[in-house]
């Protein structure tokens, strides 16, 4: 029960769109790293591009210097001054000469590639001896483009690889760093009130986790301390109530014998006596629950539920007959439980008792028993018991009888909780169904 509450609180705290810490970490990392890497990639690409262009321009300028030196060494009427090729052309022009060469990128058809390809072009009007010429030198950019593409590809691959590696390492590191946290979380999740004083956390190498564990330990020991005090108070109070109750009840019983009393007075006394009887039943049940919680009923050996069931079917025979109930049993084996005999009796008695009490006249009770489970199902006009209230003490709802103390199911739950058993409740087609199984995975 306490575990369920704890879980419910956690869901409320984390909200509906929760995700694992590791996932959140990775997503944030990706959200920040991807634009950063992309921006870096683009910047690098541009830098490369610029650098290569500068290199190309320098080459073109060097070529031009070489050519100029050469032009000065040849006569004016040399055929060289009429050369026109895609890469190099020179032809007479009008002056004046340009102070600086004009560098630009153009598209030009290339025979080899059969398409327009980019070229870097240097163009300048130069003066060689008294004549002006337009000198154009071009270099294909296709190799440079390929180069940049290759570099970009390699870079992208390296970046992606790096990113994946970092994510992986990050996850591995996170997982190992957060391990103590998850261990603590796990412990808290499985924690039951009665076992709180057994709680320990291993020392971790992280200050914050040690602090967290210390805080958890302090909180749980405070809770446990309060719980023990409350429990003792309940027990003492319940115990101390027995004697005054006995006195009051017995006094009233004596008073009932007084023949001078009027019928109406007798009735008042009887009603008071009845109310005290209920109070002492309640008190008795509370004490009983406290004792179960305190593990005062240590199992003495395996109990045959079949024998207990048969005993109680005999015990309740008249009650069943009076109400005209049909009991059908399907006993294909015996469930053997490690339970204190009194608890086994109470378990079966409460469940069978409820199946009779909450039934309607001429209703039915179906009991199934085998090596794995005990199941009891009864017809009823009462609505299903709302899940959260099912095993709660004193939870009165539409399906509680007027005078019931509402502790029957709470006691059953307590017995199952303390003895590695599980109880399930199903309601369908006006039938209440309780199933008890051994708990395969006790904490």
């Amino acid at each position, binding site marked *: 029960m306490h575990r369920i509450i704890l879980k419910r609180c956690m869901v409320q705290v984390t909200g509906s769109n929760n995700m694992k810490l590791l996932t959140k970490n990775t997503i944030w990392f990706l959200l920040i790293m991807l634009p950063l890497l992309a921006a870096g990639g683009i910047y690098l690409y541009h830098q490369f591009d610029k650098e290569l262009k500068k290199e190309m321009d320098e080459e073109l300028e060097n070529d031009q210097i070489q050519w100029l030196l050469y032009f000065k060494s040849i006569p004016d009427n040399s055929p060289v001054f009429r050369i026109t090729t895609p890469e190099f052309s020179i032809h007479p022009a009008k002056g004046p000469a340009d102070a600086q060469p004009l560098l630009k990128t153009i598209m030009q058809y290339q025979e080899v590639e059969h398409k327009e390809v980019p070229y870097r072009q240097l163009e300048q009007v130069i003066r060689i001896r008294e004549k002006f010429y337009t000198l154009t030198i071009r270099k294909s950019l296709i190799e440079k483009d390929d180069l940049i593409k290759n570099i970009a590809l390699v870079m992208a691959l390296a970046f992606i690889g790096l990113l994946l590696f970092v994510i992986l390492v990050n996850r591995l590191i996170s997982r190992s760093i957060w391990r103590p946290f998850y261990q603590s979380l796990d412990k808290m999740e499985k924690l039951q009130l009665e076992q709180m004083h057994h709680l320990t956390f291993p020392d971790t190498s992280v200050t914050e986790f040690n602090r967290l564990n210390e805080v958890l330990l302090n909180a749980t020991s405070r809770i446990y301390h309060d719980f023990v005090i409350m429990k003792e108070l309940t027990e003492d109070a319940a*115990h101390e109530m027995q004697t005054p109750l006995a006195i009051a*009840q017995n006094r009233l019983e*004596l008073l*009932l*014998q007084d023949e001078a009393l009027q019928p109406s007075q007798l009735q008042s006394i009887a009603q008071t006596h009845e109310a005290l009887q209920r109070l002492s039943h309640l008190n008795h*049940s509370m004490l009983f629950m406290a004792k179960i919680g305190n593990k005062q009923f240590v199992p003495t050996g395996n109990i045959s539920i079949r024998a207990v069931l048969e005993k109680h079917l005999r015990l309740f025979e008249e009650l069943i007959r009076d109400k005209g109930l049909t009991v059908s049993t399907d006993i294909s084996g015996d469930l053997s439980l490690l339970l204190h005999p009194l608890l086994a009796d*109470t378990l079966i*008695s409460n469940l069978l008792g409820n199946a009779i*009490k909450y039934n309607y006249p001429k209703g039915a009770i179906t009991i199934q028993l085998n090596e794995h489970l005990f199941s009891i199902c009864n017809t009823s006009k009462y609505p299903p018991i709302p899940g959260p209230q099912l095993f709660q003490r004193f939870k009165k709802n539409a399906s509680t009888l007027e005078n019931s103390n509402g502790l029957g199911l709470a006691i059953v739950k307590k017995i199952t909780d303390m003895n590695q058993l599980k109880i399930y409740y199903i309601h369908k087609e006006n039938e209440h169904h309780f199933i008890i199984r051994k708990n395969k995975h006790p904490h």
Partner: protein
Amino acid sequence: MNILIIEDEQALQESIAQYLGKQGYVCEVAVNFREGIQKISDAEFECIIADIGLPYGSGLDIVKELKQIRSDAGIIIISAKDSLEDKLNGLGLGADDYLTKPFHLSELSARVNALLRRKHFGGNTSIIFQEIQVIPASKSVLVHQKPVELTAKEYQLLVYFIANQNRVITKSALASHLWGDEYDMAGSYDFIYSHIKNLRRKLMDAGAPDYIKTVYGTGYRFE
């Protein structure tokens, strides 16, 4: 028949003595362990009712003491603690019965009655009430020497009634006698009514007068 009641709660002790006194027993009382031991050594009792939690000692020690002096008194332990160990301890030491507080005086009376019968006649005697004869050994009932067929619950009811004759018995006392406190009756005692109706009919059919009187809104009286 004299009974010693060792109980430190004055009011409780008085109630018990008064109720049992009206049933024809002679009751002596003690308020603590010392007084109890004193009275045991002074006189002989057929039955001793002892509380476990007493000043100066435990009711269990009274049981030990009684066994030591080889008393053949019947012993009923009463305790505020509904503890199985106490019960087993008491019975193991030689107590004959164990009752948890709070209890019905009619229940105590029935237990005393059964205990004395067992102790003194070894259960081989019959309980006679007018023309009704109950034979505990065979759990059979005769009215005018003719057997009457009773169910187990009807038989229990009859014995309980005879042990508490002329007393008003509440329905809750009857319910917890028949089914024990284990089963929470949820305040509905309708089923007792049908058992009583059957018992009354069977006894009257056999020729007995109607001994079971309904006390309106309260319970029943056997007279």
